[in-house]
């Protein structure tokens, strides 16, 4: 049996393939948009995964440490360590700031990790180069998205750090790459601004008669010293024992230690539901608009293609071809167009768009499957208009003017 659709495609295959290519680029953008949304959610989850924590202990009644500022004393961990079910604890600080390297600066989330060994909560779980931090000061592990290289010297506030390790996909919920530095340095970086700021602070304290009292020698020095220390961290990361339930441990810390505690699922809800909600809605809206536009364009293309061969269809009708065959011809062509478009879209989204996009684009296989089904369904529905037009053709047109 002769495939009418196949023969017709072969007849003008160049036009057909190039139409498919154009459609494919549109589908590629749509797939990328879905990938951007997935990437945003994945960024949030990566942040949680990379922290290696089961529970986040933060300042009471805050959504910290990612969605809101949270500040707790750095010895809070001692009390939490003693709670039943708690296996490991670690202080952590997060500070999004510009990290300077030579002439350029990079926006990064500087994470202060507790002194310890690899596997401590908060430490980067895997590296792509170099080594983990071994010194308690002035070493950094950076995400490769920062553009830093091993051995680079980077400046965070007043201190220089040597990049000793590189990692990947360690990003904040906003997609900023992370730079891991020892906790003590991070506490200092969070608190001590820069030399000018410190000088200004000292000057202000010195001219304040409450602190600068001649009859109390040493008071001013003590006040200035106390202003230059930071005993706060943003959160305590907790890993719980295998036989314990995260909700139970969280509840007991909430009850007895008077802190707010989030479990993994609650944290995910905060990150995905609150932190990236607006951006996600924007992307979702774009996705809907793009899908509608794509559907409309597919419909137009198929309709135009059909109108282009209306005379041939009239001839077919004239020679007694059944309506079903003609409808099949158009629908098969529409589906073929959709399939080519989807393949081009998938290839372009994966190879061209995702790598150059500044944010993480995650193309899930399941999304691709859904995308494929959607493309085919859209093509089928779009071809209905064209089929109607084709079936309404008067066979007399074949012989007419």
């Amino acid at each position: 049996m002769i495939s009418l659709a196949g023969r017709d495609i072969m007849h003008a295959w160049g036009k057909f393939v190039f139409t498919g290519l154009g459609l494919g680029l549109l589908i590629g953008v749509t797939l990328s948009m879905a990938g951007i949304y997935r990437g945003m959610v994945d960024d949030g989850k990566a942040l949680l995964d990379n922290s290696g924590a089961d529970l986040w202990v933060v300042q009471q009644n805050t959504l910290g440490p990612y969605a809101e500022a949270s500040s707790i004393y750095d010895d809070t961990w001692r009390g939490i360590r003693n709670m039943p079910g708690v296996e490991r604890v670690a202080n952590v600080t997060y500070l999004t700031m510009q990290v300077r390297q030579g002439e350029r600066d990079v926006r990064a989330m500087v994470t202060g990790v507790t002194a310890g060994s690899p596997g401590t909560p908060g430490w980067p779980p895997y590296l792509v180069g170099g080594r983990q931090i071994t010194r308690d000061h002035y070493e950094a592990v950076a995400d490769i998205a920062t553009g830093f290289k091993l051995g680079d010297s980077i400046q965070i506030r007043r201190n220089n750090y040597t990049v000793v390790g590189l990692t990947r996909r360690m990003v904040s919920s906003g997609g900023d790459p992370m730079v891991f530095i020892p906790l003590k340095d991070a506490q200092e970086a969070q608190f001590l601004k820069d030399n000018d700021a410190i000088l200004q602070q000292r000057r202000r304290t010195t001219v304040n008669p409450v602190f600068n009292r001649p009859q109390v020698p040493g008071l001013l020095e003590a006040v200035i010293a106390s202003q230059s220390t930071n005993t706060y961290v943003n959160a305590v990361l907790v890993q719980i024992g295998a036989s314990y339930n995260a909700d139970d441990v969280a509840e007991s810390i909430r009850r007895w230690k008077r802190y707010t505690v989030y479990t993994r699922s609650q944290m995910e809800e905060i990150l995905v539901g609150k932190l990236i909600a607006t951006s996600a809605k924007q992307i979702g809206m774009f996705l809907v608009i793009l899908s509608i536009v794509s559907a409309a364009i597919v419909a137009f293309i198929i309709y135009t293609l059909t109108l282009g061969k209306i005379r041939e269809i009239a001839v077919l009708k004239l020679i007694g071809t059944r309506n079903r065959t003609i409808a099949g011809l158009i629908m098969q062509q529409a589906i073929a167009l959709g399939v080519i478009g989807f393949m081009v879209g998938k290839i372009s989204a994966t190879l061209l768009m995702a790598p150059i996009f500044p944010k993480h684009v995650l193309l899930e296989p399941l999304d691709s499957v859904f995308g494929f089904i959607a493309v085919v369904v859209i093509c089928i529905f779009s071809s209905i208009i064209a089929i109607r037009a084709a079936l309404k053709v008067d066979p007399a047109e074949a012989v007419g003017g």
Partner: protein
Amino acid sequence: MKYFFVQKRTLALIVVLVPMLALFIYVSLRSGPLAPVPVTVAQVESRSIAPALFGIGTVEARYSYKIGPVFAGRIKFLNVHVGDQVTAGQILGGMDPVDLDERIRAQDLALQRSGSQLNEALARRAYAQTQARRYAELLVAKSTSEEIVATKKFELKIAGTSLTAAQNEFARMGAERDALLAQRVNLALVSSVDGLITARNADPGTTMVAGQSVVEMVDQKSFWINVRFAQTHARGLSSDLSAQIVLRSQESVLTGRVLRVEPVADAVTEEMLAKVVFDEMPSPLPAIGELTEVTVMLPVLPTGPVIPNAAIQHIDGKLGVWQIKDDDLLFTPVTLGSADLDGHVQVLAGIQTGDRIVVYSSKALKATSRIQIVDRLLKAKS
């Protein structure tokens, strides 16, 4: 001819569609979550490592001196400035004596008067002695009455007592004068050792309370470094270990040794404190308070299996490494020993020398992950 034309068109279509299909399959399988994870693999080496501890500290002087008045007063003169070298016993400055010199002069005169009174008492006693002796002889010749003799003896005793009182008064006046002179000397601000002036807290004319320091000085020979080590990373820290010292202001690495580990750790900052001394005092001398990086060398450990710390993973509450056995991934829990500062960690149990382990991976691995072994994950430095 027509057949050939059709062939040509089909061929062209195949040339376009087949590579596209191939690319599509490649893209679907080799990128995204289905793609194999590129990893680098290394063999567990057998080697010895030299652990070291890293801490930061500040240069401090072991002996520092605050020199100031013991009485409230006003500074009269100050001869030294910050940075001056001074010697033991050198007068650095002095407090205003106010009326002390006049009081010393008055005391001198009072002492002279007391000397005159002493001489008078001596004369009175000599006279009383003579009288008493003469009247005693007269009584033997029956030329005077016993009552008069008794009176003369009494007068002699009085004169003796007066003499003693005058002597004591003279001594008291002398002692008071000495006290005033000592106070006068005490107004001088004197260097107690050979050293360097580090602070000049007040200038002449300033009124100081007792105990406030006018100048501060240090003994430069006693410079040491107060080093802080994180408690978790201070295992093995003890005195007499050799240390490398890098001063912030200098490039070169200096050598030193741990003088002592402080018996009291810092409970607030969770750090151990140690004092490190220089083998040879650097020249020029470092500034007090300068930040230093100190690396303390621990004894070299015997040979054993060593892995890079980048290979260590923490999965389900266990520390371990991803081992490659028959091209399959296997998470092997390990017991870790000491580590050096270059990222090498000794393995006490879990894996053997020669085992193949994953060092770097481009994403977190699971036991079911497909892996692709590559030489390196990072592009070579251009």
